[in-house]
């Protein structure tokens, strides 16, 4: 190999996507490179010009613009540009200018084409941001076992089943003979039953429940039942099951959500086994499940506070084991909710029963199921309409204070904006809450919605869940009908803009300024969640989680093709960067924050981050156009 080829090759191979190329490809590229020099201030390519090479910055710096002259990107050593033009009719799409004396390596279109055809990683890298982010996100998912392993793989034996007309004694005997800690109940049925499966004799059965060792203690012995009690009389009302093709992760979530330790596994309608909490824990060493049951075993706030190092450890483990942002968000939210539930139970033990029915509601990230490790608390109380402040409010104020103080002690700091049930305004009967939402939706203005948009992420945690569900229904119905409301929410979703990306060791702002670090939440995940919320409200979605909302948006088919997917990849990627950063902080005994410094970002991540910011920026532009302010 000649010296100059060697020289070019050595440089290319330090930068993505070339760093992942096979050696033969590197040779071929290096051998084909042409070179051009541009003095500081000269145009390299103009819009619409023919383009026949991919441009690689060997030294110097280049600014890339949109067609309208707006700054699109700033590039330095090792960056490439011109790919969009090469992929689109071989015409320059983004004009570029040298802003320092710049030496470019030019890779001929023929080589570029072959490379894009034959190397998937390279193709993902040069294609528009969607595929590249998608590749990064999917790569992460592929590396995660929980997501891909089917729950049936955890099953070691077929289920022990008994007809529900049998007695408790029969069931206990059968469990003992089979060395199992749970037994499935079944009832005879006919073929018209949509949950029927066929038995060995061709007869029809359906699974009606599950009994565990624990149930014998609680539901039989402690309740004074006899050995002759019929199983059907002591079974749980709601049977929670999972399909055998679901992932281990789904099984874990089902257990977390419902706080159960046994989960019957069905193949279609036929029971094929029971997975136990310990099966999952044995499979993955996550302890977030144990943590939840541990939370419910604590008898004081102090006890709960003592569990917090375990919460942090579980968070770090999830990150290290390659869980996705969605998984981590759900796990952390489940832990947070369990904590609130337990705090409420402890408070009720002391305060006595509530004077009127109520629902404890969470807002913000916990409602969206995307909590991270450092989040403040956002919550409120919805009271039954029979609420009389003079008689009842002291009880609820006390409850709110205990929960809020408890959360603060556990590391969920008080909400600076006062979105807490301790605030009189957010401790109100359902009818008042209905009026609040009515006003926000019917007489919106961006200023007013700025502080209340957090209430548009809402989930019940404890008590009368129907209160919150009624509000959710109301919002889903009304929001989509109010263009002015949507426009106001959209306006607010534009308040926080992403940076362009990085330039050398700085964060590059859209106006060309440089900063030393970037708040990935404020400039990334939060505005993206805002954008998704507006679209979700406009299609009448009742979902609270951003990924679920994107599913609803996709089904409603109101966005240009591919946009929902791009938002999904961008959100997963940005969230993951934030989560990894916080895990890193925790491991190094720093308080976790949201500030990312460019020097701690890898080259690969840098490119993906740039893409994600670009997706957000485009989504914000679209929002402005999609939900214009109607003329009043």
């Amino acid at each position, binding site marked *: 190999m000649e*010296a100059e080829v060697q*020289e070019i090759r050595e440089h290319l191979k330090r930068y993505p996507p070339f760093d992942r190329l096979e050696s033969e490809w590197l040779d071929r590229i290096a051998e084909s490179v042409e070179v051009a020099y541009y*003095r500081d201030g000269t145009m390299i390519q103009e819009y619409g010009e023919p383009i026949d090479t991919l441009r690689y910055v060997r030294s110097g710096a280049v600014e890339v613009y949109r067609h309208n002259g707006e700054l699109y990107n700033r590039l330095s050593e090792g960056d490439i540009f011109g790919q969009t033009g090469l992929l689109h009719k071989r015409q320059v799409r983004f004009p570029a200018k040298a802003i*320092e*004396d710049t030496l470019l390596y*030019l890779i001929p279109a023929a080589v570029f084409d072959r490379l894009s055809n034959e190397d998937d990683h390279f193709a993902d890298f040069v294609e528009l941001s969607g595929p590249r982010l998608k590749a990064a996100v999917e790569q992460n998912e592929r590396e995660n076992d929980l997501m891909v392993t089917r729950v049936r793989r955890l099953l070691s034996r077929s289920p022990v089943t008994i007809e529900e007309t049998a007695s408790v004694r029969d069931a206990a005997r059968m469990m003992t003979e089979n060395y199992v800690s749970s037994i499935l109940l079944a009832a005879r049925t006919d073929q018209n039953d949509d949950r029927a499966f066929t038995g060995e004799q061709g007869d029809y059965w359906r699974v009606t429940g599950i009994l565990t060792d624990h149930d014998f203690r609680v539901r039989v012995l402690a309740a004074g039942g006899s050995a002759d009690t019929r199983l059907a009389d002591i079974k749980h009302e709601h049977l929670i099951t999972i399909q055998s093709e679901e992932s281990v992760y789904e099984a874990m979530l089902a257990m977390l959500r419902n706080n159960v330790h046994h989960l019957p596994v069905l193949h279609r309608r036929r029971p094929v086994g029971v997975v136990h909490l310990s099966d999952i824990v044995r499979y993955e060493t996550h302890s977030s499940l144990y943590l939840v049951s541990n939370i419910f075993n604590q008898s004081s706030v102090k006890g709960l506070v003592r569990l917090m190092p375990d919460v942090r450890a579980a968070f770090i483990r999830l990150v290290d084991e390659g869980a996705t942002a969605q998984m981590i968000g759900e796990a952390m939210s489940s832990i947070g909710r369990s904590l609130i539930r337990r705090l409420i139970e402890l408070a009720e033990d002391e305060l006595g029963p509530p004077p009127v029915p109520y629902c404890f509601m969470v807002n913000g990230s916990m409602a969206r199921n995307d909590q991270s490790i450092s989040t403040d608390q956002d919550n409120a109380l919805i009271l039954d309409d029979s609420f009389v402040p003079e008689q009842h409010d002291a009880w609820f104020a006390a409850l709110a204070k205990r929960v809020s103080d408890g959360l603060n002690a556990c590391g969920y700091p008080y909400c600076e904006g006062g979105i807490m049930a301790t605030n009189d305004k957010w401790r109100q009967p359902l009818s008042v809450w209905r009026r609040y939402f009515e006003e926000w939706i019917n007489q919106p203005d961006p200023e007013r919605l700025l502080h209340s948009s957090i209430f548009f992420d809402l989930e019940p945690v404890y008590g009368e869940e129907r209160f919150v569900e009624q509000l959710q229904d109301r919002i889903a119905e009304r929001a989509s009908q109010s263009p002015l409301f949507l426009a106001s929410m959209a306006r607010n979703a534009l308040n926080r803009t992403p940076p362009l990306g990085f330039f050398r060791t700085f964060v590059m702002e859209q106006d060309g300024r440089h900063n030393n670090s970037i708040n990935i939440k404020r400039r990334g995940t939060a505005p993206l969640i805002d954008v998704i919320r507006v679209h979700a409200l406009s299609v009448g979605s009742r979902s609270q989680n951003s990924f679920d909302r994107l599913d609803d948006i996709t089904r409603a088919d109101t966005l240009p093709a591919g946009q929902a997917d791009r938002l999904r990849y961008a959100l997963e990627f940005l969230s993951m960067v934030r989560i990894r950063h916080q895990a890193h902080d925790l491991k190094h005994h720093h308080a976790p924050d949201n500030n990312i410094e460019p020097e701690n970002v890898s080259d690969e991540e840098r490119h993906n981050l740039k893409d994600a910011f670009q997706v957000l920026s485009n989504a914000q532009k679209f929002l402005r156009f999609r939900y214009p302010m109607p003329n009043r």
Partner: protein
Amino acid sequence: MGRRRAKADEAATWPRYFADRASRSQDPALRAFYEAGMPDPDTPIGEVEMVALDFETTGMDVHQHAIVSVGLVPFTLQRIRPAQGHYWVVRPPRPLDEASIRFHRITHAEVSTAPELDTILDRLLSLLAGKVVVVHYQGIERPFLDAAVLDRRGERCLFPLIDTMNLEARQVRQGWWRRVQTLLGVPQTSIRLGDSRARYGLPSYSAHHAKLDALATAELLQAQVAKHHSPETPLGDLWS
């Protein structure tokens, strides 16, 4: 003014020299080289085909030392095309001394299996024909090629060339301020290839390989024209 006129006269003599040699050359390769002619001195630099040329030699003295490798890279003001360039190691008539090996890292073994310069000379001349040759420091390429051709073909081989070191000297070593500095004993700015390149933000290459130096020289000329001249600058202003 005096310098301008002298240069113009000199440039004007090159076409006459080429025509003369084309008609009288006995060697077919040299005749073809001269018949290909050369661009008119008034041609804008932005329109000419150039070739950057670099030799590694066993030393600086044309009477004692010899060429050991040849690198060339064709280019224009817009594009440099290393893939279409060439590189040869050639066997010098005199043995290599150790000092020169340390310098350009070409070993005895490489040289002993290399062809004699004469076998690549026809090819080399055909690649230079009709193009403007660009070197960094004409004190090597010009006399060494001339001497080598005279040795082997019995004829002189001279042509105009652009010397990037000369162009650089014009920028950093001329003018009244430089003369004041010289009087004050301020050391002269380096115009070696690597140092000159650094002034234009060009990356540093691992030097002393003929083709890499040819590439480096082509890049330097692009940078010099971009900074101090323009694509419209007539060729005659730049070559010598």
